[in-house]
């Protein structure tokens, strides 16, 4: 491992801001966090929003003061911090999912999923793509095998099915978000993804509020509208395309059809991820997965949009770029080989 690599992993702070996209996104996020309370108070003072609405907005804002640094700081600090943060996020998301579905009562299955997530995180830290990919079928098989050991055939399919779904979403799926950190351009790529996926939710909310009332999926998520969904696609797609143009400047991905497809992918899969977890909540009859962030719910309620986006963007970028994500960096950092 070279000194430059070690630097990128642990102390990337000065170089993190080298890319213009990083500078722009970081500045925008800071500006939004500074200006939001001023704007909300001004709107409340002018009577354009009611006190109850102002309190709700401020509650969400205060949660964002915690969520935004949680998302940005590890990425700025270095690749290993990013991978560890994604690993912890995966485990916490799994915890919320398991407690909501009752899977946590199946201790052996739960332990296997947790070990699977830990192994995924280690394989990402090792930059060992072969093992990272192999863990999918290996962990799924192990979940099924450990469920057999309990010798309780009744409910076997449900236990294994939930365990596999949890691992594929939070272990393998979110693991792709961490794997981006093995690329030399991981800071702008990840900030672009985090920024646009979160903004996609905001665009959907704003478009839905102002443009129409026809429901998108009333049984799954009663507040989402078709206008909101289309508005999010129309706003997020060009934003992603423009940012990705600068992030992937001069590469095979830097042509309009790929950039637009990437934007569509972020917007559509972001919304589908949201609906996916909403379906789980409706099925269980719960409103939120947890009460971690006031105004938002649990981690899963906040990060649900990333779950489908991360693997899809990872593989699309890897498919278009000649050598894929992280190909310019040394591999098997921990295991040698």
């Amino acid at each position: 491992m070279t000194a430059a690599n070690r630097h990128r992993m642990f102390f990337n702070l000065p170089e993190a801001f080298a890319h213009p996209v990083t500078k722009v996104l970081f500045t925008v996020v800071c500006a939004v966090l500074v200006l939001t309370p001023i704007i909300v108070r001004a709107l409340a003072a002018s009577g354009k929003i009611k006190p109850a609405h102002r309190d709700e907005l401020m509650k969400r804002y205060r949660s964002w003061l915690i969520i935004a640094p949680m998302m940005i700081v590890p990425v700025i600090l270095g690749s290993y911090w990013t991978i560890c943060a994604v690993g912890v996020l995966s485990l916490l998301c799994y915890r919320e999912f398991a407690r909501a579905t009752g899977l946590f009562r199946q201790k052996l299955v739960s332990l296997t999923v947790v070990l699977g997530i830990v192994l995924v995180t280690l394989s990402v830290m090792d930059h060992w793509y072969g093992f990272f990919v192999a863990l999918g079928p290996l962990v799924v098989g192990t979940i099924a095998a450990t469920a057999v050991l309990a010798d309780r055939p009744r409910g076997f399919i449900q236990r294994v099915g939930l365990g596999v779904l949890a691992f594929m979403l939070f272990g393998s799926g979110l693991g792709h978000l961490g794997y981006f950190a093995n690329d030399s351009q991981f800071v702008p790529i990840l900030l672009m993804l985090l920024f646009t996926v979160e903004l996609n939710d905001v665009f959907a909310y704003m478009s839905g509020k102002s443009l129409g009332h026809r429901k998108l999926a009333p049984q799954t998520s009663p507040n989402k509208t078709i206008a909101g969904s289309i508005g999010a696609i129309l706003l997020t797609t060009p934003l992603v395309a423009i940012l990705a143009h600068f992030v992937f400047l001069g590469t095979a991905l830097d042509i309009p059809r790929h950039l637009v497809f990437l934007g569509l992918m972020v917007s559509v899969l972001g919304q589908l991820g949201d609906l996916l977890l909403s379906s789980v909540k409706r099925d269980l009859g719960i409103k939120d997965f947890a009460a971690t962030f006031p105004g938002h719910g649990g981690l899963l309620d906040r990060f649900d949009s990333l779950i489908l986006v991360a693997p899809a963007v990872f593989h699309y970028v890897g498919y278009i770029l000649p050598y894929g994500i992280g190909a310019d960096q040394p591999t098997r950092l921990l295991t040698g080989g």
Partner: protein
Amino acid sequence: MEDWKLEPAHDLGLPMTERLRSLRRESGLVETIGHHGFWASVRAYLKSWHRLRIEGRENLPAEGPFVLAANHSSHLDALVLASCVPARLRDNVFPIAAGDTFFNTPVNAIFAAGFLNALPMWRKHAGPQAMRELRQRLVDEACGYIIFPEGTRTRDGTINRFKAGLGMVVAGTRVPVIPCYLKGTFQALPPHRAVPRPRKIILRVGKSLLFDTCDNDRAGWERVAQALEAGVRELAQES
């Protein structure tokens, strides 16, 4: 055989401190590992430092639901009883502990919930609602409780009168209640001492009692308390 139930945790959505103090608290993976590690260590400690001996081991329950009811003279009592329960049941066995002692601060609550797996009983306001919740959980989840019906530790080593509270949990149910007598814990760690002395501890486990014919009213609760007190005193008189 247990059917699959797509059922959220009963403590879902509670803030951390409330969750730790909730009678509906359910253990996650980390807590389960904490409980097993803690009870294995306690068992090793009791064997080596107090030369723990169990008499009537065959009377210990093989599965839930059940209640272990014993005399109370030391903080060691709950440790002895819980560590003697079969390992596979241990995560589902809850010592009922004084809320104002074991759950009064967040740190105490983390220890009591994360390691002891205790559920709180607030002595100053232990209302019927709390008893109903304990009763419901015992029946629904087939779990185990460790209860000290005297309500507090004896200050002179003698067994005090059993209170009727336990009756509110088991009267009219088919839940077996197992009387237990703890000998030597008062000498090892009486209420006024902070550090345990290396005294021998003996746990006598009696035959289980059923109170399904008892009415779930004050008279029934008193009957439960009297029968259990008699059972524990009988065990105490065995040589």
